[in-house]
């Protein structure tokens, strides 16, 4: 049985051979793995591997932490959406306030030119043109609050 997961925002797939409430065996990263669930206490789960070694992990809200690593895991086909903001380009890299709009609709811009300045966490971030072109639309005005990942401007 194939399970399609989003692991740290990367799509991966795992081939589950058998799963019950206490045991799971599957193919992962080119080899077979099998684990037994020996304890659940609060968010803590303890798995025992085939060698008898116990691994403690915390599983909360899609974050699996332990053994020195964090894995944010979501089951993609179960309706989980990739939540990571689409970064770069003309999107807001983080939530904040539009501090300055430096260009107007229809204005010609060159690659690297600053279009808007965003202010967040008391720091300024320049949103720069990712190509030469013409401003089709500025989607916010100065003082507007924006969410991380939102498109701020469109070039044509």
């Amino acid at each position, binding site marked *: 049985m194939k399970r399609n997961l989003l692991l740290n925002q990367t799509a991966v797939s795992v081939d589950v051979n058998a799963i019950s409430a206490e045991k799971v065996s599957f193919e992962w990263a080119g080899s077979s793995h099998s684990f037994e669930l020996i304890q659940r206490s609060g968010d803590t789960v303890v798995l025992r591997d085939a060698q008898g070694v116990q691994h403690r992990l*915390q599983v909360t*809200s899609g974050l699996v932490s332990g053994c020195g690593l964090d894995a944010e895991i979501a089951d993609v*086909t179960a309706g989980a959406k990739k939540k990571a903001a689409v*970064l770069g380009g003309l999107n807001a890299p983080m939530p904040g306030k539009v501090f300055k709009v430096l260009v107007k609709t229809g204005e010609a811009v060159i690659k690297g030119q600053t279009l808007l300045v965003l202010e967040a966490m008391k720091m300024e971030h320049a949103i720069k043109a990712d190509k030469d072109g013409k401003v089709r639309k500025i989607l916010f005005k100065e003082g507007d609050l924006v969410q*991380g990942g939102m498109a701020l401007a469109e070039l044509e």
Partner: protein
Amino acid sequence: MKIKKILIANRGEIAVRVIKSARAMGIKTVALYADDDAKLPHVWMADEAHCLGTGTLKETYLNQAKILEVAKSTKADAIHPGYGFLSENAGFCEAVEKAGLIFIGPTAEAIRLMGDKIGSKIAVEKYNVPMIPGYHGSNQDGAFLSGEAKRIGFPVLIKASAGGGGKGMRIVHAESEFLEALASAKSEAAKAFSNDAVLIEKYVTEPRHIEVQVMSDTHGQHFHLFERECSIQRRYQKVIEETPAPRLSAETQKAICQTAVEIAKGINYRGAGTVEFIMGADQKFYFLEMNTRLQVEHPITEMVTGFDLVGLQIQVASGEKLNLKQVDIRQNGHAIECRICAEDPDNGFLPTVGTIKKIGTATLKDVRLDCGYVDGSVVGVNYDPMLAKLIAWAPTREEAINKMLVALDEVVFAGLKSNRDYLRRLLRHSDFKAGKTHTHFIPDHGESLKPLPAESKEFAVHVAAYLLAGTKPAASSDGVATTNPWTSLSGLRN
């Protein structure tokens, strides 16, 4: 005067920190909060709490008139400013003292003197403090400053005179870039500090940030509590601090600590302060600035010396003579602090926001979590992205690193992206383990600090935990579970 009630003019972890020391000393506390902080634990851990309303920081945590009004109405006899906000505001210090209250911090004079990057350098030069080559004068003409930069020799650093925290700071590698960088730094400085004066300094390559904790009482006693190394920084802000500083010779340690004490003595300092130095590979150190307040990273000093720095601040503010001798202050073992921040290190360290679904618990001995949030707290854009400070102590640096790695596993911050995994990568880096710390560590090791690829065998156990933690999957036609695997855990929480 014995302090009986302290108003804390701050929020979050540092407010909680002050409450804890006060509670242990039997002193009552008054908390303040802006409307959007009403659910934070510092509000309900205090003995009283008063709302500062809504609006910008000037209307809330920087609203001196309102804060003093609450202090009077609650009959507080002292105000602790924490760090940030009004902690280095000389005017506030004066206003507090004029209102007949105790300001738990230095004198307004000391704050004013050290708050000016140019003035402070002129002031401390007379105590034989090593200074970095630079121009700290009042001539702010672009062409003149450019000439000074050339005289000092590139690379140079432009810094806001009134600044801190990396605001208004620029590194300039060549004369051709100087004027543009100057304008940009001045604009940022003007905005942040209402003062666009800058200074220019020699830029030390592979520099280390070493600072010394000082503590002075009002009876002429000035002590140091050893150094802290805070070189691991991103965006000019510290992310990992430790004490003792690795690779520091006993003579250098003695010299740098003594220099800090000389400064405290010279300016007749009061309370807790930190003298920051920049140190090159040759172990030569230069005065950077003095922070006239409690530092974020003060817990590592507490771990190795056994002192409660907030407690000492309160004793000093009460006018007590500290019953201490320098020789009795010892540096025992090794302590490391990691700042857990709501940010995405794999995406330019940009801040993240969200609701904290679950904060984990550190279980090992001598591990401390200083945190101003609880499960369910909302982290927004209005305040600093630091979620908590995790501090680990062990007899040796190697053991402290091991212990911190265990603690980072345990202290999850589920619900929003944090830098926890990145902190583990830093601690496991061979150069960090070897103590090769400098302030460019993070940019210089970009590649070797990248996350493990998703399809790595190390994640097999995480995948297994995810699969097993789910309810027995009710397979739909395409073989995929349709139930939310996390709900099944809620019944197990006690």
